[in-house]
């Protein structure tokens, strides 16, 4: 990220035009990562508003309509603005370096797929300042609340989703083309790092489901403005159809947000255990199985809509099956740690926390798959606790682990380990205080998406809020760590971590602006 190194052909342009017109995968990766961090803080601010309102029973800060806008915007921004772009940013930075390619396959499209994102989110966020208010129908935007009964800003929401979808699709095409066509000689598919593998599969998932999301919002647009009745019972449509189409996108989307995390953790754990990843082949097959299963489980989000029992049973069994490949992954990580020689730098701490807390989210996921029990869990805080466990100490922790892991490679300096550990421990404690009590709230009967609650939920809510504020505030430490690290510090070696394996560790730190203009020596490519 520092503009100093100009060893190869030419260095980056100067000033703002470097960032606006860049086609360099490292620049674009950095743009994605900074953008996603900004969105993380914005979506986090909305979460703070939610937790502040829920701190005590009664309405103190916001009215119910604004509360609904906050839950909706928090979900949309975190999913589409924070987590997905962060993974795309990591893919941009790391995939070419991991497979020995000089850049992404389609550098100009790469620039475009990033630069349309800020417009999408500016449009979405601008609705907060409009008279009709921001979307208030939940990030799942079920019809007819999001069509017939929506605020008029829903049209901005629809176009924002279209742009985000276009960005994701272009990003995925680029990633697939890079992985399939740009690998260095000797880099066979089964020698690729797992991060590359998981991203390849994720990119295919994105190509399969983002167009379906575009389709469903297009249908909404037609229902709202052109008098069609896709989701309107009066004209022969069906609101439940919306949910089927939405979750046909939505469930693979969940795995889009977790598969690259599996790849990151599969890179970090072997490094700090100083031992090869256990069961590389089974990891690849497990990832592919999870991706396949993700297409046939969508209706487990809809067990209470009144499906016939055959449907309920099919989706229950299919969902339970996901536990098998997911279990294989967890067992492989544990087996990698077993009889290793471990050290616990910040990336490893985040990776271990990922394994434990993501697995807990997996357990509640298994509980939610059990249809009759889901009748009690559905749409309660138990579900909120479940998906936050897989997405915050799951996806988000893996992103943080990745940032700490590769930061020395990006900046050329070691980050401040003390601050990093502080960030980890505050995040770890905060996230558990924040989300663990929500299991209890849900089991005791608190529905999700309510601005105010009955008195028996008061205690766990304020505890959860305190955890939320702690977790939220701790994220500013990450900002400090990154800025400090960009500015300077202890010089990083090319290898950075003692146990690190892979092509990205064979280039200098910071990585030169252009890497692998000539393919790396095939002898450097090892089995994973």
């Amino acid at each position, binding site marked *: 990220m520092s503009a100093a190194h100009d060893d190869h052909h030419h260095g980056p342009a100067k000033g703002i035009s470097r960032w606006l017109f860049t086609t360099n995968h490292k620049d674009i990766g950095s743009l994605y990562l900074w953008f996603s961090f900004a969105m993380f803080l914005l979506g986090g601010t909305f979460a703070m508003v939610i937790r502040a309102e829920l701190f005590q029973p009664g309405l103190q800060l916001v009215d119910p309509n604004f509360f609904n806008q906050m839950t909706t915007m928090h979900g949309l921004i975190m999913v589409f603005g924070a987590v997905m772009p962060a993974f795309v940013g990591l893919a941009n930075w790391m995939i070419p370096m991991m497979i020995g390619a000089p850049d992404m396959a389609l550098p100009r499209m790469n620039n475009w797929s990033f630069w349309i994102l800020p417009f999408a989110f500016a449009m979405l966020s601008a609705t907060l300042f409009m008279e009709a208010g921001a979307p208030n129908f939940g990030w799942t935007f079920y019809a007819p609340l999001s069509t017939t009964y929506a605020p008029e800003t829903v049209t901005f929401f629809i176009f924002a989703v279209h742009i985000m979808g276009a960005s994701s699709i272009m990003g995925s095409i680029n990633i697939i083309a890079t992985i399939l066509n740009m690998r260095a000689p000797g*880099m066979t598919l089964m020698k690729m790092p797992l991060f590359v593998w998981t991203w390849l599969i994720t990119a295919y998932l994105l190509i399969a489901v983002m167009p*379906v999301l575009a389709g469903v919002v297009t249908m909404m647009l037609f229902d709202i403005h052109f008098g069609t009745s896709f989701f309107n019972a009066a004209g022969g449509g069906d609101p439940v159809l919306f949910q089927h189409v939405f979750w046909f996108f939505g469930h693979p989307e969940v795995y889009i947000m977790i598969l690259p995390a599996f790849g990151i953790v599969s890179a970090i754990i072997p490094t700090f255990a100083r031992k090869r990843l256990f069961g590389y082949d089974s990891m690849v097959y497990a990832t592919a199985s999870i991706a396949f299963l993700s297409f046939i489980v969508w209706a487990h989000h809809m067990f209470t809509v009144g499906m016939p029992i055959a449907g309920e049973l099919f989706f229950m069994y299919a969902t339970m099956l996901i536990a098998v490949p997911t279990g294989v992954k967890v067992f492989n990580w544990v087996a990698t740690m077993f009889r290793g020689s471990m050290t616990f730098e910040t990336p490893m701490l985040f990776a271990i926390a990922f394994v434990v807390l993501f697995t807990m989210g997996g357990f509640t996921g298994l509980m939610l798959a059990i249809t009759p029990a889901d009748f009690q869990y559905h749409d309660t805080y138990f579900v909120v606790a479940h998906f936050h466990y897989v997405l915050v100490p799951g996806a988000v922790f893996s992103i943080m682990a990745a940032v700490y892991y590769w930061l020395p490679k990006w900046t050329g300096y070691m980050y401040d380990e003390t601050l990093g550990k502080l960030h980890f421990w505050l995040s770890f404690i905060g996230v558990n205080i924040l989300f663990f009590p929500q299991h209890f709230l849900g089991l005791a009967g608190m529905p999700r998406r309510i601005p105010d609650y009955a008195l028996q939920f008061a205690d766990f809510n304020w505890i959860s809020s305190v955890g939320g504020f702690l977790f939220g505030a701790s994220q500013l430490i990450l900002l400090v760590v990154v800025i400090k690290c960009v500015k300077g510090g202890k010089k990083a070696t090319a290898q950075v971590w003692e146990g690190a394996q892979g092509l990205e560790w064979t280039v200098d730190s910071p990585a030169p602006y252009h890497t692998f203009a000539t393919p790396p020596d095939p002898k450097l490519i090892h089995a994973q």
Partner: protein
Amino acid sequence: MKSENPRSSTKRLVTKLLFAVVGMFAFGFALVPLYDVICDITGLNGKTSGRYSMAADSEPVPVSEREITVQFMAQNSAGMEWVFGPNEAQVKVHPGEVKVVSYRAKNPNDYVMTGQAIPSVAPNEAAQYLKKLECFCFAEQELQPGEEVNMAIRFFVDENIPEKITKLTLSYSLHDITDYEVAVEGIAAR
């Protein structure tokens, strides 16, 4: 490792992927009719099929002593002002026996309105065994100001209905589909 020109192979790959994108976009829309077909087969959502047509000479006859209670239910959807309800609360039928029941509807307003009734059956799995020979829900209903009508349903319950179903509920929700740009004078009168 690539023997061919990577640029042209990338081009071909991207073209294929773009086709996949377009295909999946179309698939999203294809889910709409596909869903209707699945609903029709499985009775998902309690959707009943359309008009049941049979050979002209084969009026169904009661085929079994079994007695099934059919309940009638009605509700207006938001904004629909008609008075709407069944004239019979429930009837008992033998499978195969054709029954005629009716709903009444009244337009209380001083302008012409159009309504559309949407049927739904509980339990959902019974939907496919409820065969409607005639139903007001097959067409839009237009009522003059103050007009009141009785609207008939001719139906029978298919003999193949599972043994455990002894009672089924037919519900109509009534929706206002008046074109208000035409009826705007009526609105202004309020």
